[in-house]
């Protein structure tokens, strides 16, 4: 068949002519035979035609068969040629390993970085929340008169909103807290979500084994059931399917396991196990009591036709109702709502978009670079292509071969890039950048893969095609002549195009570098902020005192006192402090605040103060200074007069130009507390946010179950960790213990997110710089190679090496100058 193809092509016979010739020949032979048999020519012709039958139909039939056959052959030929082209492309790639490596690396980096970051953006920002009707879910929040919002509601407020809201179809609550789980291996602390009955249904939360909660299980005395999260079930119960009906114990109550959540099932709040909220006496919409103890996260599904202003209007109406019904607790307070999505995603939107932009730049630089490499190579191959065209390769054939080469490059580069993307997405997830939300939703998505692969293919296609078109447009002889003279053609125009591309990519890289530089500078500034305490030389450990032995405050205080005493006796320990919060650990509780005898402040001034408990040595342990007055002492006991310490910010806010020592303040209780001292401001949230007003009460007067133990030593702090843990274990083996961590960790954790963004952007800028340096190298080395004969002649005529160097450098500086100007 192949022989016939060649034959047909050589004579240029079309199927139609082919068929006609064959039939004519047949008829002619038949006539000749009939004449030989003695028929007169006229009659012979007639007989021959009659014998043939329907000539036209036969012709049509033959043409159809031949057309069909030709199509098949063309396809076979196309595949054969594709195989040839691919083979040739692979040989070309092998023969120019430098070019191949540069192009592939460029594509891989561009595609890889872009896919990885796009996956993060996609997972965190773009994909919908894993809840049913997620766009209709809202978070109900408290709205204070000064415009600040608070995420939690109190139990009675929740019941009031639930009973009276008109714009929501369903309103449910989550009470998320830490509980100690006993009865399954080591005692451990887990994140628990206590939920109202309809929550799972509303969110579409799926149970894998067992059942969900029943409505009656929110009633007091009937809530001793638990549903295990999938992760906890795997970790602690080894995925045992027979776990249903077994029980766990927490805070002295035994809970029967009735279900296991499906993998991936999640609530807006992190939890490892789920319990029904016990609707005790505090869940009462008719009482004023407990209205200012906010701890419920309230999620509601809006009616389909309710827009945001309708939601706010209705919640405001509700708030006003409660203000008049319970003025002593709800004065000035209303409610507002926020889409659940915003609540969960928080303020990462902007940095992620910035990163995305940076990655787009890197991708652009990569594309430009590949374009440049392909253009340079296209010019270098000008001669080769001209020769091939001269010996008979058609224009389409040449273009097809170049496209095949570009596509192969694009495909391999894209595949490598996906490898990089997969690996770096895993690395990003593993790095757990601080508190990036929804990190478990980050996946390498098919959208990303298609987008980036398409982009890399498109780039290599377009810029692989330019030289092909250029070569095939030119007069063949001209190409041959040029190839005899220099290593390539393309001439001045091509060179200008390549220079422009390099200038553009350098400019992009410079932009990225500037951005990275700015971020690095602000990051350094962040790390140099005085935290107000001494992070080094101390360790910290969280202990939660739960269970029957710790039913009341006295029992808890006794145990904490014992703990402090025992740890203080360890060698090298210089101070042992106990507090309810850590520096940079957040604000903790927020309470109202007023100075006794002072005129009531204007309503728009925020009268809130962050409140924490602290033992006498807390400040010594964290290394924060006392500015005036006295620290707490062992004499500040529950029954002794209430005293407080203020931080400097609080003192400045409420006692400008006055001495607060000895003054009485009111906060969350009608009994006035005496200010006994002023301590230095300690950073509370991040180094970027200045300390806000904060008040400390003696731990003895403000006792909590969860304490932060801080141990300062004059030796290696981490060497103390196990000794400290042993002391806790010796006091009560049932206490769940978190790992002891250096206090310095709270500082590095607090800047984890800026550090994450900074290092990513720096990485991108570095990649862009490397890529564009490669681009400059490509253009310069190409132009030098092009001029090698000229340089040779100049040197033969007496030019010194320095002169040549100067001329080459002059061109490079010219490029740089263009970059500066653009």
């Amino acid at each position, binding site marked *: 068949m192949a022989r016939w193809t060649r034959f047909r092509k050589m*004579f240029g*016979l079309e199927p139609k002519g082919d068929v006609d010739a064959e039939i004519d020949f047949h008829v002619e*032979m038949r006539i000749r035979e009939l004449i030989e048999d003695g028929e007169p020519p006229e009659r012979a012709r007639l007989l021959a035609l009659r*014998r043939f039958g329907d000539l036209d139909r036969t012709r049509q*039939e033959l043409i159809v*068969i031949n057309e*069909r*056959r030709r199509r098949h052959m063309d396809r076979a030929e196309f595949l054969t040629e594709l195989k040839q082209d691919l083979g040739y492309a692979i040989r070309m790639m092998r023969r120019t390993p430098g070019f191949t490596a540069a192009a592939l690396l460029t594509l891989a980096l561009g595609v890889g970085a872009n896919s990885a970051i796009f996956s993060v953006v996609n997972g965190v920002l773009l994909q919908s929340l894993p809840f049913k009707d997620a766009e209709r879910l809202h978070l109900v929040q408290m709205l204070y008169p000064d415009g600040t919002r608070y995420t939690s509601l109190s139990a009675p407020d929740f019941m009031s909103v639930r009973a009276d809201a008109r714009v929501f179809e369903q309103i449910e609550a989550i009470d998320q807290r830490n509980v100690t789980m006993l009865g399954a291996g080591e005692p451990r602390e887990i994140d628990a979500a206590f939920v109202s009955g309809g929550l799972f249904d509303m969110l579409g939360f799926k149970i894998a084994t067992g059942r969900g909660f029943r409505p009656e299980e929110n009633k007091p005395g009937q809530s001793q059931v638990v549903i295990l999260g999938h992760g906890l079930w795997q970790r602690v119960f080894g995925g045992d399917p027979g776990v249903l009906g077994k029980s766990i114990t927490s805070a002295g109550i035994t809970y029967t396991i009735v279900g296991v959540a499906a993998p991936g099932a999640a609530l807006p709040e992190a939890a490892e196990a789920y319990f029904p909220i016990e609707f005790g006496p505090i869940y009462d919409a008719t009482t004023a009591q407990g209205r200012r103890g906010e701890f419920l996260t309230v999620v509601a599904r809006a009616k389909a036709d309710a827009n945001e202003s309708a939601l706010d209007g209705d919640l405001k109406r509700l708030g006003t109702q409660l203000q008049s019904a319970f003025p002593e607790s709800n004065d000035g307070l209303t409610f507002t709502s926020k889409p659940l999505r915003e609540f969960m995603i928080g303020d990462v939107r902007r940095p992620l978009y910035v990163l995305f932009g940076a990655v787009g730049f890197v991708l652009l630089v990569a594309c430009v670079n590949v374009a440049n490499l392909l253009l340079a190579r296209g010019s270098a191959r000008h001669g080769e292509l001209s020769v091939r065209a001269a010996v008979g390769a058609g224009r389409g054939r040449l273009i097809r071969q170049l496209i095949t080469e570009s596509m192969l490059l694009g495909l391999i580069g894209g595949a490598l890039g996906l490898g990089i993307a997969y690996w770096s997405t895993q690395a990003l997830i593993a790095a757990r950048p601080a508190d990036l939300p929804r990190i478990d939703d980050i996946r390498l998505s098919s959208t990303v893969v298609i987008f980036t692969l398409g982009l890399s293919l498109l780039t290599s296609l377009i810029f692989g095609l330019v030289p092909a078109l250029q070569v095939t447009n030119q007069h063949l002889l001209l190409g041959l002549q040029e190839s005899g003279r220099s290593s390539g053609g393309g001439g001045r125009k091509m060179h200008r195009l390549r220079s422009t591309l390099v200038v553009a990519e350098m400019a992009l890289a410079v932009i990225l570098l500037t951005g990275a530089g700015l971020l690095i500078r602000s990051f350094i500034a962040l790390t140099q902020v005085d935290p107000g305490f001494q992070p080094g030389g101390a360790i910290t450990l969280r202990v939660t005192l739960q269970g029957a032995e710790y039913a009341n405050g006295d029992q808890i205080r006794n145990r904490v006192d014992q703990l402090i005493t025992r740890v203080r006796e360890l060698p090298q320990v210089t101070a042992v402090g106990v507090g309810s919060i850590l520096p940079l650990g957040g604000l903790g509780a927020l309470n109202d605040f007023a100075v006794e005898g002072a005129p009531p402040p204007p309503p728009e001034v925020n009268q809130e103060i962050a409140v924490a408990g602290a033992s006498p040595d807390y400040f010594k342990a964290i290394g924060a200074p006392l500015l005036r007055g006295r620290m707490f002492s062992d004499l500040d006991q529950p029954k002794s007069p209430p005293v407080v310490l203020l931080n400097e910010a609080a003192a400045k806010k409420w006692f400008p130009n006055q001495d607060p020592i000895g003054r009485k303040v009111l906060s969350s209780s009608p009994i006035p507390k005496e200010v006994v001292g002023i301590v230095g401001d300690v950073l509370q949230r991040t180094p970027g946010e200045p300390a806000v007003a904060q008040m400390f009460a003696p731990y003895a007067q403000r006792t909590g179950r969860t304490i932060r133990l801080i141990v300062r030593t004059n030796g290696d702090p981490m060497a103390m960790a196990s000794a400290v843990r042993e002391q806790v274990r010796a006091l009560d083996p049932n206490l769940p213990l978190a790992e002891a961590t250096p206090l310095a960790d709270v500082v590095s954790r607090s800047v984890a997110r800026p550090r994450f963004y900074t290092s990513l952007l720096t990485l991108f800028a570095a990649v862009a710089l490397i890529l564009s340096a490669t681009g400059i190298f490509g253009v310069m080395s190409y132009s030098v190679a092009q001029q090698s004969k000229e340089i040779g002649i100049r040197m033969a005529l007496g030019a010194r090496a320095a002169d040549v160097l100067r001329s080459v450098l002059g061109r490079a500086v010219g490029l740089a100058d263009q970059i500066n100007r653009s």
Partner: protein
Amino acid sequence: MNPPAPEILRGTLDLLILKALSWGPSHGYAVARWIEHATNDALAVGEGTLYPALHRLEERGWITASWGASENNRQAKFYALTRKGRTQLRAQTASWHRYAAAVFAALDAPALD
């Protein structure tokens, strides 16, 4: 041609063409002549069926075609058996013999008692 010629059976024409080409390449007219001669013109093989059959065999790869000079020095399309065509010829000849023998045997067989 006085008693009406029986219609040629499906597939039989292919076999005859292959047989006609088994002595060497020849053009369509020679194939037609050979079939007319070999069957005493008893089978109505019109050119209207012969040429499509030739082209289909070519499409199937059992024969190839090429242009060459005929005995009277005219351009003619010559068909030749391929290796695949030769194999087909052997297989189909054998199966035709078996088929014919079976039909003959049946026609001579007595009634079942």
